């Protein structure tokens, strides 16, 4: 079973691209990109269990804390750097976006859209949202920087990042209208300006 944002990412990544997946988890996206796009791919992951899972999945993984930057990776050494469902858990949000566009010309970010109407409804009802894409209680969450699509786009403008493409989904289906309200998961492709 391929996660819903993976398919979009795979559509964007050209065949035989050099791809770096930050916070790559168990390496399923990397494996998918290797199998379907013959990607030359590496993952970066901190957790022991995930590093082991990556090795079991037959993908290259480098154990490292993303918060410390990407100093092992040279400028422009990749075609794409992916940060899927990890941005919201990063402390150094601006730093990692800058690092992404240092090591590659283009980046892909996916994150749960805090502006999704069901999230807003839970806040209006007086609670922090818990949903499929934000499946954590407020007291037990790795997420420290949740944002809406508007927020993310404003940050990109501030960092001089050009957004090239945007795909918004809810329960695996594409959303085309009122995306910041109707979409639970946002997937962005962007480049250095």
């Amino acid at each position, binding site marked *: 079973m391929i996660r819903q944002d993976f398919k979009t990412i795979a559509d964007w990544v050209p065949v035989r691209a050099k791809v770096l997946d930050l916070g790559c988890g168990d390496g399923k996206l990397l494996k998918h990109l290797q199998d379907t796009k013959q990607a030359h791919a590496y993952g970066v992951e901190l957790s*022991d269990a995930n590093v082991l899972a990556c*090795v079991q999945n037959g993908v*290259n993984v*480098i*154990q490292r804390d993303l918060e410390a930057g990407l100093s*092992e990776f040279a400028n422009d*050494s990749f075609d794409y750097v992916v940060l899927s469902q990890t941005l919201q858990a990063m402390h150094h949000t601006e730093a990692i976006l800058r690092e992404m566009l240092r090591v590659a010309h283009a980046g892909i970010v996916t994150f749960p859209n805090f502006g999704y109407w069901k999230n807003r409804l839970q806040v209006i009802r007086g609670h922090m949202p818990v949903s499929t894409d934000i499946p954590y209680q407020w007291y037990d969450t790795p997420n420290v920087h949740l944002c809406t699509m508007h927020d993310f786009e404003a940050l990109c403008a501030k960092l001089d990042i050009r957004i090239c493409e945007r795909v918004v989904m809810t329960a695996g289906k594409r959303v085309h209208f009122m995306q910041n309200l109707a979409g639970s998961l946002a997937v962005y492709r962007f480049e250095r300006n």
Partner: protein
Amino acid sequence: MSRITMQSASSTQNMVVAAQTAHFDTPLTLKSGAVLDSYDLVYETYGTLNADASNAILVCHALSGNHHVAGVYEASDKKPGWWDNMVGAGKPIDTDRFFVIGLNNLGGCHGSTGPKSINPATGHAYGAAFPLVTVEDWVASQARLADKLGIRQFAAIMGGSLGGMQVLHWSIAYPERVRHCLVIASAPKLTAQNIAFNDVARQAILTDPDFHGGDYYQHDTYPRRGLRLARMLGHITYLSDDVMGSKFGRILRQGGFNYGYDVDFEIESYLRYQGDKFADSFDANTYLLMTKALDYFDPTHTAPEAGLSAALAPAQAAFLVISFTTDWRFAPERSREIVKALLDNGQQVSYAEIVSKHGHDAFLMPDAHYHALVRAYMERVSG
């Protein structure tokens, strides 16, 4: 010339193994320019070489290691080979699938030609006349052993510490002969601090009055005190401050101070015991030579400005690089230098930093996560 026989170890709990000797008559020109006209290499094999000789794994040993990697010589032996927790039937390096080779490097003191071997030219032990051998020379001799065993290409070559340096050199010198490299608790070259430790160890041996310039065999003496000190120093650097603290702390041997220079603290007792044990079983000239091989190894030596990336550029193998958090002798940063160089070249590499309290010695310990990683990687090697 002795005949090479493939001996397949049985897949039992206590794999009973036997050492073999390969004799080489083709002169080997060493990096120093010296030539060894002929030499022996002692080795052991575990598991069975498959029909197309594609399942062979070479294990390179570290400073004080040897060819006895796994198993026991007799069912009643209490102590198995030095990496028995890693290599064997059903173990991370599974000898039911792989044909594993361990050897004693040239200059060693466990059967391969070294300083205490008889020099055919003089009829005496080589002693000081034995040439300094380097990591590059070891790899060249290992390649000749592989030729004898009919192994064109290793499925994997692995080693920890100084063994990892041999693995690195294999990938550079014979890129087409190794598919996977496992470089564990190693470094691309020693730091000044590391060379400094080695030199103190060497000075302990060289200044021992029983050393006789390395020709102690003829004088019927042995620089035992020097080798003992060298090993004690080494041991301090192989352990972490943490593990020394938790294992020994300030525990007193007899509950109180003796107000003298005999053993007061447990740590003193431990180090003296380790020093004694080692001095009884190792050759001082080999210790000198192995530490020098460590110091000399530097893949960037001939082109320092081009850096490690350029040095590793010829490698075709995929790499698994592993370090341990409390290893300060071969710190994780040093492994990351290797990883960075491979990444610069776009080579296949995975890197894991294992949380351990055991310092440099961690690479020999049976840590569950560490072993699971190696086991998982070996799936890729065999697949």
